[in-house]
């Protein structure tokens, strides 16, 4: 029986000098796949189990350290989240008659974020893995740590949001901040990383960079002019994109922006949220990335040779999520796996081709060259404001001259309306916007942005 490809034959991980090799530590909770959000809900932790099966059947465990996470405690979770919210999560059960309707409303649980059986242990496993991943990096025991059960970036300090209840990313970053002065957070989920951006909106010790679909899309934040506030001003970067972005376009933009971010911010550690709903054909997403294109982000960040944490996130076409996170595990360890999937317990999910890689769809890339140039220029311009103080103490920044588009706004109120990530019913992901509002709403030329920003609306 001839092998379909070479796989990779490597010397065992004795020395670490090889530029292709990194010490990679991977967290996996064996029960994670059994947590079930409920009938028809697109978020399926089962995808993490499918990814794990592929990782192991490809033999990647021979190059990894794998650990079962320790569940995060209420105290651990309260390091970010409010006490009342944590108490609620810890006591919530799947029985709807027991839930206090005021608590349900206050903490935004219900449709998008249902209270399901085992909700709290699920959160504990997800957060425990990310905190453990941070501890590993702090101790210097690994170069890259991986937790596919993490990356739940929408959760807020006092409420659930967008299928996320506990923000494991914020908890992990808080742990990293004990030993690292500057943490870079990069988010390639199709949805804006609002929970993480909000948590660190007013600090310069964490820079958040999110690439996401913007315009008539959950969660509604992530406008290009949202750059942070107070000491955190210019330490939030938002890259708003339109439907159909493809591998080449995304790679150009990503590498250009990240390269500059690395130059001006010089982070000591990077956290990458690898939400797989930015893949082509995702049930809730609208981008057109292949698994390779998605993984190129990880590959590029890895090439900077600084400690890195790799987390999961969204992803609702579960066979592609499994493919993506398996491939990204391989990229982390420095292996190029064969395209023909190994036989495994979930093999039948991957028909008819049973291949690792996926083809992008034939859809229009609504991101025009002009839009992308404008986005790039605006962001590089925002980043240049950091270059005024290359080595200064991060807590004392001289006031910088502000253009008219940056006047301070009263931002203490959160809009009363909460948006939904998922319509809750049968979902047709191929609907075109009938009124062509998308094209107009996504006009992000510098002209239009300057006209919009003075208008602040509290809904």
């Amino acid at each position, binding site marked *: 029986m001839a092998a379909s*490809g070479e796989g990779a034959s490597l*010397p065992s991980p004795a020395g670490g000098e090889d530029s292709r090799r990194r010490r990679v530590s991977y967290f996996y909770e064996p029960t994670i796949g059994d947590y079930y959000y409920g009938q028809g809900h697109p978020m399926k932790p089962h995808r993490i189990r499918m990814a794990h099966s592929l990782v192991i059947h490809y033999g990647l465990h021979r190059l990894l350290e794998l650990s079962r996470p*320790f569940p995060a405690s209420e105290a651990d979770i309260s390091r970010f989240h409010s006490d009342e919210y944590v108490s609620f999560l810890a006591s919530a059960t799947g029985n709807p008659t027991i839930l206090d309707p005021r608590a349900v409303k206050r903490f935004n649980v219900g449709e998008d974020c249902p209270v399901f059986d085992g909700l709290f242990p699920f959160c504990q496993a997800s957060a425990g893995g990310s905190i453990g991943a941070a501890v590993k990096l702090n101790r210097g025991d690994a170069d890259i740590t991986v937790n596919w059960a993490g990356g739940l970036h929408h959760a*807020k300090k006092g409420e659930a949001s967008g299928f996320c209840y506990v923000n494991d990313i914020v908890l992990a970053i808080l742990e990293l901040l004990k030993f690292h002065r500057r943490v870079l957070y990069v988010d390639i989920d199709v949805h804006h990383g609002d929970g993480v951006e909000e948590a660190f909106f007013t600090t310069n010790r964490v820079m958040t960079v999110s690439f996401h679909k913007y315009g008539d899309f959950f969660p509604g934040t992530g406008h290009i002019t949202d750059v942070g506030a107070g000491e955190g001003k210019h330490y939030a970067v938002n890259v708003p994109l339109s439907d159909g972005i493809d591998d080449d376009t995304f790679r150009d933009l990503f590498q250009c922006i990240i390269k500059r971010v690395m130059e001006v911010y010089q982070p000591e550690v990077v956290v990458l949220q690898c939400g797989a709903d930015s893949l082509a054909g995702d049930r809730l997403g609208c981008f057109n990335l292949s698994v390779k294109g998605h993984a190129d982000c990880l590959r590029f960040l890895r090439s900077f040779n600084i400690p890195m944490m790799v987390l999961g996130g969204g992803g609702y076409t579960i066979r592609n999520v499994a493919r993506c996170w398996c491939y990204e595990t391989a990229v982390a360890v420095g292996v190029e796996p*064969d395209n023909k999937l190994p036989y495994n317990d979930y093999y039948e999910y991957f028909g008819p081709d049973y291949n690792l890689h996926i083809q992008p769809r034939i859809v229009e890339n609504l991101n025009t060259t002009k839009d992308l140039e404008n986005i790039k220029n605006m962001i590089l311009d925002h980043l240049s404001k950091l270059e005024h103080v290359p080595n200064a103490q991060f807590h004392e920044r001289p006031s910088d001259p502000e253009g008219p588009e940056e006047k301070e706004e009263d931002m203490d109120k959160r809009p009363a309306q909460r948006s939904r990530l998922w319509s809750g019913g049968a979902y047709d992901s191929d609907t075109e916007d009938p009124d062509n509002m998308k094209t107009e*709403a996504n006009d992000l030329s510098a002209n239009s942005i300057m006209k919009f920003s003075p208008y602040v609306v509290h809904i």
Partner: protein
Amino acid sequence: MVLMTSVLLTQRKKIGVGEQFQAEIPDWTGPPSDAELSWYRNDPNTSKMLGSRTWPPEGYVVQTNIVVAGQGRPESCNCPYPGNFYCRLHHINTARDRLRSEIGQVFKEWKFDLMGEQVSEMWSIEEQLKFAALEQLVPVFENKSFWAVAAKHFASKTRVDLVQYYLNVFLMRRVSNQCRLSLLEIDSDEDEAEEEEDEDQSDGSNSSQRPQDVQEVKKIF
């Protein structure tokens, strides 16, 4: 232009600023000293968050200098009908056995014995047929009480058993069927059967697809 503005404004949400939104960030007091690093490494509350290492297990000795990883399935095999259902089943079972002998007790720790078609071994044929029939009668997206109905009909099975069967066996068989029927849009790793009506099906309506699940089960056994 006015319409554009209002569309963006009603959509644009603001990030909250204030104590109830931001995380508490400690001040940076400088890189950790050796003593601090040593304390961190030895503190049991911190170290317990490392979890428990599963692989490589204690005392595991690497047999050789060369590690092979990333290998996919072979190009060809010696099955009488390569690529058909029984060929795949045979290779999946072989791969599982090989993995079990490579990783020993970690196989059970990672619950590889509860993945995929193996879960159906704890279900009788009658139970499997009943589940498929129930699912067809009570489409998941329409009637929110599928699990309540299922619980009534499978009194001996826990909710966890039902969900495990659904994810590991039922959904996967549905995808397998769609591949067999060469549907252009394979979407049924999702719960919502209504999506299937949009697909170009070679053999007609949505409902004719379901009995295939039952046929497939009959064929297997």
